[in-house]
């Protein structure tokens, strides 16, 4: 049986205390009852690094809202527990947040598996859940969810930005290889991309690999044998780096190469000069020009003295979305649910808008490319030259 850890309770207390302190605005009545929101974050375990950035953004958002006097004079109280990077713990914590703490809504955890587990509890209890960093489309595809909403671009569109660039630049290069992991999110992204690639006149070969695989040499040989010219890798970071290195070691130089997580800053550490010209996709970049984004980046830098990551942006956006819902509908869970299902809400990530399944349709990924050691947003409406073809591996 899962139990709540002391660490989790400690985290909760600290966060609630922080929220309470910043909520003690002079404009607020002493009697104003706080609006309770719940969250589980991976404060420990394998997702701990990323979840730390989520927590920072939550605190920043709570500070902002409570600094303005809360919503309708009521401060926000954010209750955060440690899910220990474990989906089962996340589900138990969701039940605790709903049943014991009385949270009116849950802001999603970091990662798709934990969101998936928490959605089960949210649906059962009929409490709105905003999956702030859950890209896996299969969470919403394989079952009918009424109370859980995706606030992150869907994984189905992982390859979209790269394919758009291929459409413009590929010329005679028509052979696309999609490398994908044999997991639901990667398979659905591959299926979507294969269809889209055929529509723009590319021939597609798809190569699956087992989760956790580190040896891609045979896949590289198959791509060499097939004469692949464009390569798009739709897996996690670790296998993507392994594939890239093994392509370089084999001397296999495709015309263009994309791996979905390449926008992560550690790509440069891992690949060095070989990162040049590699495409990626990003849910959010600090350089995206919009007034809301600029204000958020400035606020975050002032508070934490560094540029926010996409984890922070997505978490702050989740706060903005629930703020809009409570502003409009108060604290009634069903009314908040209906509002989230039907509204277009501006956030730092873009315009939050879900389809009938609850999947995010309002914003998608932007394409990125490593240029002179900097990960730049390219394609779409951005007027930045694209490096094409990819420089040969060094």
């Amino acid at each position, binding site marked *: 049986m899962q139990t709540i850890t002391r660490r989790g309770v400690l985290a909760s207390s600290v966060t609630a205390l922080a929220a309470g302190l910043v909520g003690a605005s002079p404009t607020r009545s002493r009697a104003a009852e706080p609006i309770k929101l719940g969250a589980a974050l*991976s404060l*420990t*375990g*394998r*997702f*701990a*690094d*990323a979840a730390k950035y989520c927590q920072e953004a939550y605190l920043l958002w709570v500070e902002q809202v409570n600094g303005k006097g809360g919503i309708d004079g009521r401060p926000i109280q954010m209750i955060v527990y440690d899910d220990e*990077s474990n989906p089962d713990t996340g589900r138990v914590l969701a039940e605790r947040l709903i049943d014991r703490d009385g949270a009116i809504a849950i802001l999603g955890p970091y990662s798709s598996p934990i969101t998936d587990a928490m959605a089960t509890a949210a649906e059962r209890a009929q409490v709105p859940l905003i999956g702030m960093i859950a890209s896996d489309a299969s969470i919403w595809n394989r079952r009918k969810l009424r109370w859980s909403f995706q606030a992150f671009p869907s994984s189905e569109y992982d390859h979209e930005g790269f394919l758009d660039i291929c459409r413009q630049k590929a010329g005679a290069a028509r052979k696309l290889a999609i490398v994908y992991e*044999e997991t639901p999110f990667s398979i659905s992204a591959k299926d979507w991309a294969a269809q889209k690639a055929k529509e723009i006149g590319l021939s597609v070969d798809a*190569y*699956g*690999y*087992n989760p*956790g*695989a*580190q*040896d891609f*040499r*045979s*896949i590289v*040989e*198959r791509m060499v*044998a097939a004469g692949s010219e464009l390569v798009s890798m739709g897996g996690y*970071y*670790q296998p993507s*780096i*392994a594939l890239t*290195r*093994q392509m*370089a*070691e*084999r*001397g296999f130089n495709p015309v263009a190469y994309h791996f979905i997580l390449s926008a992560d800053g*550690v790509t440069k*550490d*891992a*690949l*060095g*000069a*070989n990162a040049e010209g590699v495409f990626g996709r990003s849910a959010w970049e600090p350089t995206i020009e919009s007034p809301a984004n600029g204000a958020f980046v400035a606020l975050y830098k002032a508070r934490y003295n560094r540029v926010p990551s996409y984890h922070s942006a997505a978490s702050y956006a989740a706060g903005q979305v629930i703020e809009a819902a409570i502003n409009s509908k108060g604290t009634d869970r069903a009314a908040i649910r209906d509002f989230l299902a039907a509204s277009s809400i501006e956030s730092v990530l873009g315009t939050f808008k879900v389809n009938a399944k609850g999947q995010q349709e309002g914003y998608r990924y932007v394409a990125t490319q490593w240029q002179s050691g900097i990960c730049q947003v390219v394609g779409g409406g951005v007027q930045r030259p694209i490096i094409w073809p990819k420089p040969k591996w*060094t």
Partner: protein
Amino acid sequence: MTLALQLIANGLVVGGLLCLVALGLALIFGVMRVVNFAHGEFVTLGAFATYLLVANLHVSPLLGIPLAFALGAVAGAVVQRAIIARTTGRPELDVLMTTYALSIVALGAFSQAFGGDFRSYAEGPTGTLTLSGVTIGWRSLTVLLVCLALGGATVLIMRRARIGIALRALAQNRDAAASCGIDVQRSELFAFSLSVGLAAAAGSLVSLIGTVTPYVGHEWVLDAFVVVVLGGMGSITGAMIAAILLGLVHSVASFVLDDSWAKIVAYLLLYAVLLVRPQGLLGRADG
């Protein structure tokens, strides 16, 4: 022909690494009858040691290989003396649970110390070598050569050195070896220390061609267990042959079929061998 040679070269790199990890497992089991579930965490130790060396001192990761080996050997000696030696004579399940617990503790310690993020470095050998149409990167070639050197040295020690003969005697009959004057405690300490040193060196090589996370050793050790069973529990030569065989089978099967089928073929091979030779390729039949 070139393609076949290329697939063989690819398979040898993976097989070499598997060999290094499995050698230690086989040695520990052969000499001490201990199934070391914590072996993967020593691979992780070597990977992190090399990563930290490169990231902080900006030196070649090749220096990390002997460092990881030495660090692993010391860590192995400490663990053997402090924990494993105390389980001598206890039921097999107790020993199994001890190494399992050690694995969980070490995994937790790595996660706490380094978080779950992937770490990697670009330093180290670059470029490729092409011979008769077969291309292999210098990083992979380094891995292959180091595996060959360490594997060969281990075999030499086991066949020629006094301590190796003592370990073989212990593996055959512990009581008889002890009655012949072999210092069992010292021999076991050496076996465990060498095994963990090999695992840490393998971790250093893994960091050269892959990424480093607290789980990196865990991923390799599962396949290494298959190698040990396939080669024959406790057989050093058997483990080496099985590792190379498995690397080649994976390379060819994932080219001809795909990656998922390669896993299936590898396990089918294991079942087929165990059906014909339940003791594994070079294991000794009970009784």
